[in-house]
């Protein structure tokens, strides 16, 4: 075991931090993504020479240490807290050769914190294309640092970067700017009050708008007195500071950085002319959305059917091969169908993140933000809400986390509150199975009724999100400074490695994060359905045998009756029948009731629950769908899943807040129980009312 050093990758968004991170760590990385970890924190390990290891963190993109959004405050919180276990031994600032000037701003700030800092100039492959030439030794001297010229795309410069990281002890920690020059009087009194503190650090603490967690701020808490300067004054000083920083940067780049514009090519403006066009821009965006849904609905159908059938026969096979008994039953009826209920999502989740990460990587997502801002603002949202709302079609959890870059608290809160209305992939299996049961297969104008229904449900979810945002915007009385600055990055061909890693990463965290809950619930359900209290359950065989004694049933038929009698008297059956009065006006029986209750944990549990309930006791190799189609409504007669109850269920699932993990992440992100509780109560009662009206009207 050798020594391990902490390395933090910092820089503006889109400079290639994640690409550098991927190049350094390969598959040696993990992402904290799910409840329990607040920050999307990517960490990995990179082996250097002589047993030295680097622990690398990919921090969220930030333009400066003056955080204006939550995402950015993560960076400054880390850099101000020397006691954090991740506090960097060396900061690696990643910059894009095309935006070097702007990217260097944060470099100067970090250096002023006297943290050893080295600079990566990434995208070196673009230099010729843009007519840029660099004199690295000159720049190193001017900026007083070491520079690695890197192209992650061409896989160049990574080894040099590793060497520089290894030699981090030789880096100069001399600041770029003399902080006191910003305002001599003010800073000399500050220095007198806190003689042992770094002036720039004090200044950062004084001027931060974002509320921090617990950093080692306590010792400099008294600093609050220095806020005496009014806001406008502080702002003027910050402006002065920024101008000084740019002066330093312009000076430093004077010799070492030249651009021959006659050699530069310009693909950006050609593409922008079409992609941000007042008409074409929107048409193309709409087309991309269509394509995305096509992929999720159509293309993933094939692997999903395959997975469904594989698990059905696996379950059957287990039953036949293992000696019968409680354990085999648990395996065949609880665990295997439960696992199937998780694995079946993989194709859809993968497709969604494939699209989303390609759109992000290519730079197109910012154009969408630009196009949609005005429209979204009408509903109290921001152009930046589009990304969460689109990601919400995969899963509300990453979507809620993706709101972090919305600067206005009100816009961000509204986005968080309405995102769970969008049709997440967990609703999809519920929708798919019910649509296939109750919507006829016919065609209308070449489009299948079933596909159209699904499309309508997506629109409904989106409409509900936007509509409730409109109402929230009117009733929430929150004053928050609203501003909107979006960088429009260059268009880029997505790097395959980045896209693949995102897809694998997100899918994995779904399978292991949400999957755990689903599996646990499947097992609990199986127990509740396989055991029961009282004499009725224990003496089921005798009761049924006596009851049907006169009817000369075959052994098989008798067993069926015993099984369903047992289920009705099991723990789950008793609970289900207790809530039946509440849900029968919606057209559901107690089995659906159980599925709804258990799917509160996660919607996708619905199908798994029905699978578990229906497979307990029945041993033919039928798919879930066939079993559901055979169910009879106990009160009204006729198929349980008919048009009226099917529509009612679809609507219920469209609106109800049924996802514990989403509630947990909303609590985390809003830092209060008020909002998730409000979401739960309002969404679920609305769902109940709409489903009730639909069933009563259609039946």
């Amino acid at each position, binding site marked *: 075991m050798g020594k391990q050093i902490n390395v933090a990758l910092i820089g503006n968004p889109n400079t290639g931090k994640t690409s550098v991170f991927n190049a350094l760590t390969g598959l040696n990385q993990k992402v904290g993504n799910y409840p329990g970890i607040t920050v999307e924190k990517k960490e990995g390990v990179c082996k250097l020479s002589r047993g030295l290891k680097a622990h690398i963190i990919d921090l969220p993109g930030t*333009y*400066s240490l*003056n955080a*204006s959004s939550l995402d950015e405050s993560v960076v400054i919180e880390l850099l101000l807290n020397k006691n954090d276990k991740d506090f960097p031994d060396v900061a690696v600032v990643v910059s894009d050769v*095309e*935006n070097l*000037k*702007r990217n260097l*701003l944060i470099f100067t700030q970090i250096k002023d914190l006297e943290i050893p800092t080295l600079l990566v100039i990434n995208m070196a492959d673009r230099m010729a294309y843009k007519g840029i030439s660099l004199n690295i030794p000159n720049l190193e001297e001017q900026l007083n640092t070491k520079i690695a010229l890197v192209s992650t795309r061409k896989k160049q410069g990574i080894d040099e970067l590793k060497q520089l990281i290894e030699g981090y002890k030789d880096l100069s920690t001399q600041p770029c700017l003399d902080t006191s020059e910003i305002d001599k009087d003010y800073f000399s009194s500050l220095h007198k009050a806190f003689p042992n503190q770094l002036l720039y650090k004090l200044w950062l603490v004084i001027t931060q708008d974002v509320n921090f967690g617990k950093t080692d701020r306590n010792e400099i808490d008294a600093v609050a007195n220095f806020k005496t300067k009014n*806001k*406008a004054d502080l*702002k*003027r000083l*910050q*402006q002065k500071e*920024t*101008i000084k920083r*740019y002066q330093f940067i312009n000076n430093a780049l004077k010799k070492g950085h030249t651009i021959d514009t006659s050699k530069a090519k310009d693909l*950006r*403006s050609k593409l*922008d*002319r079409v992609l*941000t066009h*007042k008409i074409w821009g929107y048409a193309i965006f709409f087309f991309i959305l269509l394509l995305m849904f096509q992929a999720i609905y159509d293309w993933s159908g094939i692997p999903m059917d395959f997975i469904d059938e594989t698990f059905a026969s696996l379950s059957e096979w287990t039953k036949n091969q293992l000696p019968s008994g409680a354990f085999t039953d648990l395996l065949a009826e609880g665990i295997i169908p439960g696992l199937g209920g998780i694995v079946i999502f993989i194709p859809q989740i993968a497709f969604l993140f494939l699209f989303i990460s390609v759109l992000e990587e290519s730079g197109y997502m*910012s154009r969408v*933000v*630009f*196009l949609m*801002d*005005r429209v979204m603002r009408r509903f109290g949202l921001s*152009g930046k809400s589009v990304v969460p709302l689109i990601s919400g079609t995969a899963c509300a959890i990453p979507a809620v986390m993706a709101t972090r870059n919305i*600067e206005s608290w009100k816009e961000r809160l509204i986005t968080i509150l309405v995102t769970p209305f969008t049709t997440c992939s967990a609703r999809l299996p519920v929708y798919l199975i019910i649509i296939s049961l109750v919507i006829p297969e016919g065609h209308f104008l070449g489009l299948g009724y079933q596909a159209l229904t699904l499309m309508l449900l997506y629109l409904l979810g989106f409409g509900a999100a936007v509509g409730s945002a409109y109402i929230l915007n009117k009733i929430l009385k929150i004053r928050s*400074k609203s*501003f*909107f*600055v*979006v*960088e*429009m*990055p*260059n268009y880029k061909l997505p790097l395959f490695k980045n896209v693949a890693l995102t897809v694998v990463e997100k899918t994995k965290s779904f399978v292991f994060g949400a999957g755990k809950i689903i599996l646990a619930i499947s097992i609990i359900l199986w127990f509740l359905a396989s055991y029961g209290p009282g004499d009725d359950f224990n003496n089921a065989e005798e009761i049924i045998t006596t009851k049907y004694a006169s009817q000369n049933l075959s052994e098989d038929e008798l067993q069926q009756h015993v099984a369903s009698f047992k289920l009705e008297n099991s723990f789950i059956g008793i609970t289900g029948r207790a809530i039946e009065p509440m849900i029968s006006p919606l057209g559901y029986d107690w089995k659906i009731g159980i599925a709804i209750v258990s799917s509160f944990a996660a919607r996708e549990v619905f199908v798994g629950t029905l699978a578990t309930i229906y497979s307990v006791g029945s041993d033919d190799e039928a798919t879930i769908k066939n079993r559901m189609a055979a169910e009879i409504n106990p009160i009204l007669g006729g198929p349980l899943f008919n048009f009226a109850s099917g529509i009612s269920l679809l609507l219920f699932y469209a609106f109800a807040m049924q996802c514990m993990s989403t509630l947990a992440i909303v609590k985390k992100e809003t830092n209060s129980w008020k909002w998730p509780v409000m979401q739960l109560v309002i969404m679920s009662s609305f769902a109940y009312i709409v489903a009730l009206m639909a069933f009563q009207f259609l039946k």
Partner: protein
Amino acid sequence: MENTLAHLKRGEIALITDVSSIHIPLKLLEMGCLPGNTVQLVQVAPFQDPMYLNINGSHLAIRKETAMHILIEKVSHG
């Protein structure tokens, strides 16, 4: 007032003269929107809002309400 960024037309180039209004977020300054730099209006969304700018080589989009507070001097008519 005709000399704010909100009055720029597509393709036009101007010189930024003043950004001291408190309605301009610091982040915008940090992205290069500083006096003396040139700004070009690259593209506008419907209703001229938001505005897609090229400030000294930095490409960014801001809302019209912010653009209204940035004072400029036109240098070319596009």
